């Protein structure tokens, strides 16, 4: 190479060298520049700028650090860097809606955000330092942020016990239990009751094959696409328990054939005394008397009937037992009599109490039911099925097991398959990649999957065995929340210690009381030590509250104590022996330590105390705003017309001191009465007496009509 050319080349090399070093420097500079531009650092700086414009800058920057903030909960396996960007999360002055995210303060909640972090409740990727990675589902982290309307699911992950603060979660758990989801699925914390659906061992003695066919084709309780529930075509708020199965004509014929031959036990002798029949069968008042008796027994506390008022037909009554508008066309008359006499003889686990019927009443009521509560069109569209053939019965038997009927319904001698549906106890923690989405065009995440499956099981799996339910949006969200809360057993012992266990409530009396208690099924409506229904007052401490004689009178002839209550206690036609057994047990056993009836002697009350008490009641504390005495006063508390004949003095005193100590969720506000005021008020209330007269039929009809007028 010539020398001059070498010089040229050197010049060129120099230029190349210069350019490449500039490029090299620039590339080196990219790294710190990129670091400077990192998302979380930008948010850090923008928070600094944001706080400069506010009056309380110093306070807002008190714990500001320019690097990543991290909350580490080793026991819960949580690393949470959310507060790196959400820096104002605990600053009360940033609670205003006008404050831009991510700096806005979190609304007040029971857990301190600085102690627990965000992902414990909201999910998402805690260690992430980029917006998208933290909030959305990524390949490495498939737990995106939980939409806030399901956030109560996270409460349920540790709080197995029901919290008053999480109504949606509680509703979801109730729905899972009420709809018998645990018949097929394993669900933690939801116990499998003794009976899910009705026991079908003797169903052939109750209904005809045609009725079974119709029921299987179109269950009586139907929910339309908007979630409106209808029973027998009438609108109601009842929960649909029997879902709709997708059955073919052959399957319907087979199942109805198989069920109609289930007559393991013949009906108990159920004939009504011939003299009663002879005396009443020609009486024109038979049906109207039957209807009256039906109402007097307060069957509507548990059962509903369709009532037409002002052109609108609505179901009115309780939803503990089935709706009865068309029951006369459904059940066989002999079965009805046997059932009403002894419900447990047909269904050992039924909640229906055993009433003390006289033959006359039984005849009148059953005649009313079989003549008036009927619908001649009930079986329209059902083909004549005739006698079931052996082949159909065989098919029905097979289907009963294959379709999972046996998971909810008992038939003697049939063993249901255990865990018929998938175990759902860890569903809430599943990654989207663990789920089958099939051909469904839905976003691939857990929430969409659960909702799609609940709305239409075949949408994600065409071969799904799960029956079709229809929901309204709020029930769908509630059930989704409950399912999302089930993230499986806690993985670490530290987590296990966090779990707030579900409270096991039990009340198992024994002896003579237990027999009567079981016969009248008191626990269907009343609560005892946390066990039982919600329809009627909690009786855990009834022995401290009520006087024995009042209890006996009430049991024999129940009265309503609260003027606004629509439902009330049925008249059981209780014998003296049963009533005294119940009253004796309650006064002896169901006592609160703070209210021992023997501890306060009513004789100590003097007329001046009574006068002072009356003054306090009417003027100083104005108790009449909620309680009625002598026809005037409020609707909220029980009426006190007979307080002296009903309550014990010890209970009134303890109650005035602290009502919530006796009944935790009572709405009577706790006051700061002095002991003298308490004594005086008790003295006054103990003078209020009113004898309970036997009810006149006319009055019952009037109250019942009024109750129906109020509607539910």
């Amino acid at each position: 190479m010539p020398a001059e050319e070498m010089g040229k080349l050197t010049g060129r090399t120099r230029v190349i060298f210069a350019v490449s070093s500039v490029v090299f420097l620039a590339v080196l500079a990219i790294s710190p520049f990129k670091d400077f531009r990192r998302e979380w650092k930008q948010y850090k700086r923008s928070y600094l700028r944001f706080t400069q414009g506010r009056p309380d800058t110093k306070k807002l920057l008190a714990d500001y650090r320019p690097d990543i903030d991290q909350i580490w909960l080793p026991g819960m396996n949580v690393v949470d860097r959310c507060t790196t960007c959400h820096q104002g999360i605990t600053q009360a002055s940033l609670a205003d809606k006008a404050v831009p995210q991510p700096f806005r303060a979190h609304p007040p909640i029971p857990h301190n955000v600085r102690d627990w972090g965000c992902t414990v409740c909201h999910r998402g990727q805690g260690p992430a330092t980029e917006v998208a990675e933290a909030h959305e589902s990524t390949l490495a982290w498939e737990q995106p942020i939980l939409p806030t309307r399901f956030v109560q699911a996270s409460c349920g992950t540790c709080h197995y016990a029901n919290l008053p603060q999480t109504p949606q979660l509680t509703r979801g758990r109730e729905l899972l239990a009420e709809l018998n989801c645990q018949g097929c699925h394993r669900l933690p914390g939801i116990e499998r009751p003794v009976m899910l659906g009705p026991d079908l061992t003797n169903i052939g003695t109750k209904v005809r094959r045609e009725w079974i066919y119709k029921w299987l084709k179109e269950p009586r309780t139907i929910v339309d696409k908007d979630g409106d529930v209808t029973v027998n075509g009438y609108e109601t708020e009842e929960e649909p328990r029997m879902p709709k199965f997708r059955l073919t004509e052959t399957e319907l014929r087979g199942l109805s054939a198989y069920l109609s031959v289930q007559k393991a036990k013949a009906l108990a002798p159920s004939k009504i005394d011939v003299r009663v029949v002879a005396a009443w069968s020609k009486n024109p008042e038979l049906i109207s008397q039957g209807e009256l008796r039906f109402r007097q027994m307060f069957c509507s506390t548990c059962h509903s009937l369709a009532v037409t008022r002002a052109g609108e037909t609505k179901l009115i009554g309780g939803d503990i037992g089935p709706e009865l508008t068309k029951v006369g066309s459904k059940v066989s008359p002999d079965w009805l009599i046997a059932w009403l006499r002894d419900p447990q003889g047909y269904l050992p686990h039924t909640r229906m109490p055993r009433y003390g019927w006289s033959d006359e009443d039984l005849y009148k009521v059953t005649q009313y039911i079989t003549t008036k509560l009927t619908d001649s069109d009930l079986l329209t569209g059902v083909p004549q099925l005739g006698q079931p053939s052996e082949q159909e019965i065989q098919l029905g038997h097979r289907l009963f097991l294959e379709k999972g009927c046996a998971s909810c319904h008992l038939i003697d001698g049939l063993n249901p398959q255990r865990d018929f549906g998938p175990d759902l106890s860890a569903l809430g923690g599943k990654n989207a990649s663990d789920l089958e989405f099939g051909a469904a065009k839905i976003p691939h995440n857990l929430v969409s999957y659960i909702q799609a499956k609940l709305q239409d099981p075949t949408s994600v799996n065409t071969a799904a065995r799960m029956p079709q339910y229809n929901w309204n949006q709020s029930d769908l969200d509630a059930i989704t929340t409950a399912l999302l809360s089930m993230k499986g057993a806690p993985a670490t012992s530290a987590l296990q210690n966090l779990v707030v266990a579900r409270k096991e409530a039990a009340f198992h009396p024994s002896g003579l009381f237990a027999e009567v208690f079981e016969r009248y099924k008191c626990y269907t409506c009343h609560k005892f030590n946390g066990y039982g229904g919600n329809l009627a007052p909690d009786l855990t401490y009834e022995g401290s509250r009520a006087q024995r004689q009042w209890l006996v009178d009430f049991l024999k002839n129940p009265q309503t104590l609260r003027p606004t209550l629509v439902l009330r206690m049925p008249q059981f036609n209780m014998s003296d022996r049963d009533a005294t057994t119940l009253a004796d047990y309650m006064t002896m056993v169901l006592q609160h330590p703070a209210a021992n009836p023997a501890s306060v002697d009513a004789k100590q009350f003097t007329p001046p105390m009574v006068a002072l008490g009356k003054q306090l009641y009417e003027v100083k504390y104005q108790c009449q705003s909620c309680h009625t005495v002598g026809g005037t006063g409020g609707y909220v508390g029980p009426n006190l017309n007979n307080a002296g004949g009903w309550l014990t003095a010890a209970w009134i005193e303890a109650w005035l001191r602290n009502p919530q100590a006796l009944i935790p969720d009572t709405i009577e506000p706790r006051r700061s009465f002095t002991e003298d005021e308490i004594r005086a008020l008790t003295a006054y209330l103990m003078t209020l007496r009113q004898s309970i007269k036997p009810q006149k039929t006319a009055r019952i009809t009037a109250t019942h009509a009024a109750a129906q007028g109020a509607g539910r």
Partner: protein
Amino acid sequence: MKFQVWIGALLLVTVVAISGCRKHAEAPKPDPLLSAYDTEPDWTDAQKIIPLDYQQSQGKRIFYQQCVWCHADATPAGPSNRSNLTPVPPVLNDGATLNAESDEFMQNIITLGGSALGKSAMMPPYGKMLSAEEIRSVMAFTRAVAQPAYEPPGRPASQYSPK
């Protein structure tokens, strides 16, 4: 040579531009109703749904347990007790009356009862039954359902001098 310089310059610009212009993912902006802890229909217009945050929804729960009997026209158990009372208590969403009351007054009347503040003794005190936190949540619920809507009073004068 000119060619190499161009290449170099182009490379430099591209690299800087690419590294600087990375698009930031937008934080998801959910519908306020879908991101609400709970909701309550507007009492005067059932079509309008008011989103509630955690505190307000706790207030809703306590309201429907304790207050609904006298401060609403319909209750879960049927007719309201309002008509039995003189003076007739305000309905909870009555913004025309309640918006004018300060938070302090509301807190006091719920805690101490009507007679302590020279109002009707029919309003009982709840200070021994509800915690201060629960009373605040009831107030938050009151403010959320108020019609006309509640406007919080202006921010109190700052104790710091603005820079």
